[in-house]
């Protein structure tokens, strides 16, 4: 695929495009655009093979009706680290619509009458041969009654590396929010050389059980005692070492009868039956900080591929 697009694609409110290309051994951002309320920042780095992009929203959060759609191309021999600045906060709604000068997407114009429109974030990633994508955002926090959907699709070459982190926290502790969101829906779909190998769909809902209130289980009860749940998808040449370390660690765990749950739990499973397809790690912790520290330590071997200074920016 050629480096930069010859035509500027039409983007709607909340739309964005990032393309990282390689030229003469250096990575440079050949396409970089975002419309309100999406905002992208890319700091200059001393390392020329890797680029960082911060994906932000004006106001530091998303509200009902917001639709973010980001297209990311990580071209051959480049490495892209995508971060956020602070947790993505999802609010239920606000009295007035956001004012945007760009045409609202189809989605936002269509909403169920009588219902606060949900928030939607769509990301499409293409990761080419010998390229690497490190998606390490802060966790999503859905506030009371928020409704949020996130659909992330990753199309990668056989020798591409993917590190995909998707995590959520229980709410604002200061307000006593403990999984009181209305709906959280997140899809991470991974296609390698055109073939779907993984599709992780998480749906968290607080809904009413019609007949017997005695059997009604709230989200807080189902997820207790953990305040943070994370999923990490790892595959590709640059994470072979990380995967090997995880596999060894996991194999060494031996559980005896416990009286109460541990503070942090994690599980490891393979994707598909082919080793090339990578692994899925799931982590749950009583506090977000615990999960963050665990992730930071577990993924530390990425430092050898993106550098200590760059890695330090993740899990701040």
């Amino acid at each position, binding site marked *: 695929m050629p480096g930069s697009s010859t035509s500027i694609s039409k983007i709607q409110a909340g739309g964005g495009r990032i393309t990282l290309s390689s030229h003469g051994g250096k990575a440079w951002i050949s396409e970089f655009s975002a419309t309100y309320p999406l905002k992208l920042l890319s700091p200059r780095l001393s390392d020329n093979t890797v680029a960082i992009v911060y994906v932000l929203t004006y106001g530091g959060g998303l509200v009902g009706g917001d639709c973010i759609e980001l297209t990311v191309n990580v071209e051959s021999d480049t490495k892209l680290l995508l971060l956020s600045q602070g947790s993505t906060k999802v609010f239920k709604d606000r009295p007035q619509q956001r004012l945007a000068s760009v045409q609202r997407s*189809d*989605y936002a114009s*269509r909403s169920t009458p009588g219902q606060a429109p949900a928030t*939607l974030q769509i990301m499409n990633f293409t990761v080419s041969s010998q390229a690497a994508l490190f998606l390490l955002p802060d966790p999503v926090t859905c506030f009371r009654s928020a409704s949020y*959907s996130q*659909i992330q699709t990753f199309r990668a070459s056989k020798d591409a590396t993917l590190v995909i982190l998707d995590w959520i926290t229980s709410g604002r502790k200061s307000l006593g929010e403990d999984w009181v969101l209305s709906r959280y*829906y997140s*899809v991470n779909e991974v296609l390698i050389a055109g073939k*779907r*190998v*993984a*599709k*992780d*769909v*998480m*749906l*968290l*809902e607080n809904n009413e*059980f*019609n*007949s*017997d209130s005695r*059997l009604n*289980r709230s989200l807080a009860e*189902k*997820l207790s005692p*953990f305040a943070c*749940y994370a*999923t990490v998808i790892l595959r590709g040449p640059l994470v072979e070492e990380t995967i090997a370390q995880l596999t060894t660690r*996991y194999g060494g*765990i*031996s*559980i*005896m*009868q*416990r*009286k*109460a*749950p*541990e503070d942090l*739990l*994690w*599980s*490891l*499973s*393979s*994707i*598909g*039956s082919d080793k090339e397809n990578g692994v*899925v790690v*799931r*982590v*749950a912790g009583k506090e977000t900080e615990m999960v963050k520290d665990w992730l930071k330590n577990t993924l530390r071997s990425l430092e050898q591929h993106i550098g200590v200074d760059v890695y330090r920016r993740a899990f701040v």
Partner: protein
Amino acid sequence: MDDETFLLLLLSDSNLPTGSFVASSGFESYIKHGFGGDQNNRTTIFMRDSISAYARSALAFVSDTHRIVQDVRRDVEQGSEQKSDLDSYLQKIKEVDELYDAMTLNDVTKRASKSQGVALLTLYSKGLTPPLAFTGVKNRKETEIEVNSYMTSLVSQYKSLVRAESAPGHLPICWGILTGALGLTSERSQYLHIFLHARSLLSASVRLNEIGPYNAQQTLLHISRSVIEAEVVRCKDLRTGIPSSTGTESDQPDGVDDKSRGPANTWPLGEILAARHDLQHSRIFNS
């Protein structure tokens, strides 16, 4: 007694060789890791969360597979030319099967699902087709004989695909094949599948010394029932999103409009504990 009722009785037999005896659906791991509080409520709490999570993740696959098998039946009964193209139906089933595999990112669950799945296909081939020497009921219609012959062929060919590791052979898909081949309605197939999940769980609970055998029956009759009903009703119209053979595109569950129509994992805690089953120092179940 009508055919369907007799089939239901037969399929509910706890002696049915389905391989579910060694599966606790993550309950053993749940207890070992210290969840559920004290023993009094543990089984009910776990059952509630487990049935809800399983129905949401699996039922769409049961119904979509069942529908494909029903399409074969319809084609045979109508004498349509498509009936001879079993291959295309097998490919459709395989697609549904592979989607379930891609959506179930849990080694322990996949292992248990595959072993129970192939057990169901074997059950059909060896236990539910008419015996070779059987001359058959005199009044049996010719179409019925023909349908059965296609079903037998479909099941055995799919089982070959599974044995050749060309298709995963997961439990919800194989249950859809089995019940479709037997002529059970979709509603009954879905309900029975969830009922058996609940029953198996309670049986595991008894063997784990969590509840006594009488208590288990009491729970099944008076508590599980409303949970099963509610979850089946909630999930019966879910679709996997793979177009059916009728040529109409099913709703895309991930379309911007329609994010509530597809399978999903709704209990991440259950997922982690089920995946960690093998980490237990000692255990009596396989999953």
